């Protein structure tokens, strides 16, 4: 099962490597990983998407919690949540393709952020499935380069992950 685990971490050198090290030491998967400081510069917010059985996910959250620098964490997939990923993608855009790509970008509510005579660079945000859907709609042959940020997530409603 795919899970999104959101972690508040001390913003200290080496803290991230402990998290990443834990996943490889214990043979857990990392599908995506994002990390950046929060509004409080002493803390980082880290989001990791992973897959595993119920038992593995329970171990992942427990083992993460055991790391001294982990302040708090939440498995966002346990409740209603919003997930977003940012993608920048370079597409081959010549001749009649240009209009077709423009239409597809509009349908997916993306933006063309850079243009040359043969290339569109598109920015698209959404959940991971939407980004996958866009690539599928364009077709692999038209895609020159893809860069994805990995998933960030936040709980819906009043729930807050903070100190």
């Amino acid at each position, binding site marked *: 099962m795919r899970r999104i685990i959101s972690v508040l971490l*001390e913003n200290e050198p080496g803290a991230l490597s402990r998290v990443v090290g834990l996943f490889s030491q214990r043979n857990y998967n990392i599908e995506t990983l994002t990390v950046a400081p929060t509004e409080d510069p002493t803390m980082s917010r880290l989001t990791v998407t992973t897959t595993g059985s119920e038992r593995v996910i329970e171990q992942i959250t427990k083992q993460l*919690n055991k790391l*001294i*620098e982990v302040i708090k964490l939440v498995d966002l997939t346990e409740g209603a949540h919003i997930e977003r990923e940012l993608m920048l993608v370079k597409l081959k855009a010549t001749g009649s393709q240009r209009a077709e790509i423009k239409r597809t970008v509009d349908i997916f509510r993306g933006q063309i952020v850079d243009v040359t005579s043969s290339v569109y660079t598109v920015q698209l945000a959404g959940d991971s499935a939407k980004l996958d859907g866009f690539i599928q709609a364009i077709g692999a042959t038209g895609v020159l380069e893809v860069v994805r940020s990995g998933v960030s997530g936040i709980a819906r409603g009043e729930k807050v992950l903070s100190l």
Partner: protein
Amino acid sequence: MELLSGADMLIRSLQDEGIENIYGYPGGAALHIYDALFRQDTVKHILVRHEQAAVHMADGYARATGKAGTVLVTSGPGATNTITGIATAFMDSIPMVVLCGQVASTLIGEDAFQETDMIGVSRPVVKHNLSVRHPSEIPEIIRKAYYIATTGRPGPVVVDIPKDMTAPNDRYEYVFPKKTKLRSYNPAIRGHAGQIKKAVDMLLAAKRPIVYAGGGVILGKASGQLTEMVRGLGYPITNTLMGIGCYPASDKQHIGWLGMHGTYEANMVMHNADLILAIGARFDDRVTNATEKFCPGARIIHIDIDPASISKTISADVPIVGPVDSVLKEMQSLIKESKVRPDADALAAWWKQIDEWRAFHGMRYETSDDVIKPQEVVEMLHRLTNGDAYVTTDVGQHQMFAAQYYKFDKPNRWISSGGLGTMGFGLPAAMGIKLNFPDEEVLCITGEGSIQMNIQELSTCKQYSLPVKIINLNNQALGMVKQWQDMNYGARHSHSYMDSLPDFVKLAEAYGHEGIKITRKEDLEPMLKKALAMKDKLVFVDIYVDPSEHVYPMHVARGSMKDMWLSKTEKV
């Protein structure tokens, strides 16, 4: 205002932390610290011959006293040599602080002489590690290191100290923090009351209960509470290898230790139990055998300070996260208050069954008129030391024989690398204990393979007068490897023997100690007595034992707990 250099702050912090002995080896990056050590006499330093031994010494001390051990080494090879010792402590949750020199912060990352990323190298085998980034942080970091090492589930903490952080001319105000608090680290201080109540109800309703206690009982200093509770209930108790001594082995409710080489009765009781009360144990693979076949009829209460140990390999029905001593205390008072008593008829029937299992096997081995059996050596040592010695071991057959035939009635006396299984642990661990308990008998039961992994420490023993007794169960083979090859590899003894063993008597003498070689059965008792009578001498007792002996019982691989070999020919 008192101004101190980083090196002086470090030593002063150790003093303020109450550290008496540290174990280590100097080198370039640690020289400022060694100079500060030289200029005081409160903290005593023991110079080992290899850094791994320093860690095992600190570990032996920690296991025997329950306090954190302390190690001091230099950067690079000094630091990497500690890794096996740190991993050993980590697997067995032993509190320890390892102070490592590092190249100057200005050189880090430049592949400087004796530079190793010790923070990175040690990360998978420490509870935590800390790096000094300004000399003034040192007192705070040292306090934090001991706090983390000794609280919650204990473990080793590494502190990496770049050389410029200890420079003699950079002085700062010394303030030792009285308390330390980390917002991201709050170990449980008591168990959940509702869960404890539920556990007590289940415990009192059980028909075929078993208490399964682990090393956490010893680390949590809860042997007293455990013994009181189990005696009051009249239930059978088993313990893990790491839990040996947490409940008196001579007590009739104690059915021996469990697992791969545990007693027949302990494994049978576990398999047939309807309730398992696991306390400070972690359902390790050497206990459970195949997890999918584990104790099919049992409901499980699991008490542990580490939530990640609960439901890791075996799901718990009632998890309780908390310190073992406080949880047991609360359970005991609920048991006393409760009107429900254990079902006497069910318990009597259970004990009748247990006694039948005991009678069926118990611990036994075939004696011989000609060769010395390793088991009889251990039994004799138990008798000659009144069962009251500190016993360290290395790893292999001798370790299992020692655990099976030396019956411990007290905690903290069985000192063995259970989790990592580190050969070379026994001698330095014994040294760490002897140094701190000079009047106690300290035995290192070892084998001719293991002892050679840290044999150089005989020199340290001479320097600091550490008269431990080394009992070398010499079967001229890596016995446990050979046993597995006998059982699983058609007796093809691939590299499990040594052709050119040293003359251990001469070796001991070369280091300035006594050596005794025993080959004949009739010499065993008088020679052991003679060795033990030499109170102020390290005696290396080299005993030639039956090379064909195997350790039994032994779990049948991939079976359940009840599937065991009881001898070379009997399988149940």
